[in-house]
């Protein structure tokens, strides 16, 4: 199994912030969305999975104070914390968003995986904080690109907005002129012609 630090291209002394930045850069670079029509799609998916697993492992090691490399298996954080997340989901489904948000906030930074971002996005959507909600869904999709639930949540927000805009979108009537504008323009043109010794409108 590959060294997770090598996968992310960071040294073992890197700070959490540097690791996060490296992870986001790689996730952006290899995001499957950028390869939708490419024959290399399967390779990118494989690569993305490797990056995600490496990131999750480093975070897990650092959160628990484990020595790097002592863990032999990769497990997604969503599986690891599923009992808490299941409870948060239950609260969200019951409409108890305040408690759900408080529970999400209690989860320490190092343990916040794709599912955390997804659930926070759900809570923010309910609050009507659509921009931040999209950002959370985006993070969830970056961390777990294969998850259709996260992708659907992000698409739902975008599609609702697009549908709303389509309902009312109308062509702007820019460049139109009124009768007054037309008459004024004709009079000005006539004056200019008369100055040059000619005439545009003979009756005035």
């Amino acid at each position, binding site marked *: 199994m590959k060294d997770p630090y090598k996968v992310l291209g960071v040294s073992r002394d890197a700070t959490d912030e540097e690791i996060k930045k490296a992870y986001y850069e790689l996730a952006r670079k290899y995001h499957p969305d950028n390869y939708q029509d490419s024959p290399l799609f399967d390779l990118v998916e494989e690569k993305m999975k490797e990056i995600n697993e490496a990131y999750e492992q480093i975070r897990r090691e650092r959160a628990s104070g484990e020595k790097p490399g002592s863990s032999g298996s990769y497990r997604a954080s969503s599986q690891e914390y599923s009992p808490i997340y299941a409870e948060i989901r239950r609260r969200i489904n019951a409409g108890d968003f305040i408690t759900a948000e408080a529970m999400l906030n209690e989860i320490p930074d190092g343990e916040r995986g794709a599912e955390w971002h997804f659930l926070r996005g759900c809570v923010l959507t309910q609050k009507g904080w659509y*921009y*931040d909600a999209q*950002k959370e869904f985006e993070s969830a999709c970056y961390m777990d690109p294969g998850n259709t639930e996260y992708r659907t949540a992000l698409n739902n*927000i975008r599609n*609702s907005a697009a549908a*709303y*805009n389509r309902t009312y979108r*109308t062509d702007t*009537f820019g460049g139109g002129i009124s009768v007054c504008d037309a008459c004024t323009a004709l009079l000005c043109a006539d004056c200019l012609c008369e100055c040059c010794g000619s005439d545009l409108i003979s009756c005035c």
Partner: protein
Amino acid sequence: MFGYIRPFVPQLRVCEHECWRAVYCGLCKCMGRHVCADSALALSYDAAFLALVRLAATGEKTEISARRCILHPTKKRLVMEPNDSLRFSASVGALLAYHKIADDFSDERTLFRLLLLPEAKRLRRKAGLSELDAIVTERLGALYEAERVAQKEHGASLDKLAELAGAALSPIFAYRLEGSAARVTAELGRRVGRWVYIADAAHDLEKDFRKKRFNPFLFGAAQENPEGGKLSAADREAAIAAMALERRAAEAAINLIECADAGIISILRNIITLGMGSVEEKLLGSSGA
């Protein structure tokens, strides 16, 4: 509010356009008479929008007559005669002008702004809404403080800041209304305030980047964007969707206003759906562009 809240005129019916102009001109006259002579200089589309919302929520009887004014001496114009909604909106227009000038001055201390300050303070005093002003000042103070903290900590939640802006505007819309009218107008004010904050952040992005000033879009992922003063494609798409959904929520609030005058509701809907929509397009381009 910064002049973004205006109707999309080509889609207004003739009678609606006349009503809109009558409210706008009526507000101008009302500012001159009710607040102070030069306060009409602070006239804005935003205050006219507020006047329409208040007219719809209070169901006040209105009277429109043809009058001349200094700006249009040759032709009489339709003007709404002063009423409570117009007087209140005139005072709020003066009050918001003060807050805008004071905020601009604290952003960048220029001589011109310094000279404007005493006049702005006079407008605030003449507005005479001390009770409401105290609430708005306190809430705007919370917003500016949150912006200062966000700048210091290099991290900002756009929605958190927008919520504070919405909270500052909300009591203005619901001022002295009761029951469902108060709830609906408060929600409308909140949504419009949030929308304006995002629109203003998008509008000022390049300028703020150049002048190294705070802008909620310039933190997080956008900070690392090598293009700096421009939104990344993902941020832009998220902003477009967020603003459209704010408008959808605002329209939902308008649908709940119980108003016998269908024309006023139709103008309000035009402003939210098309007017603000076209401002969005100008600021961010259309989705998928």
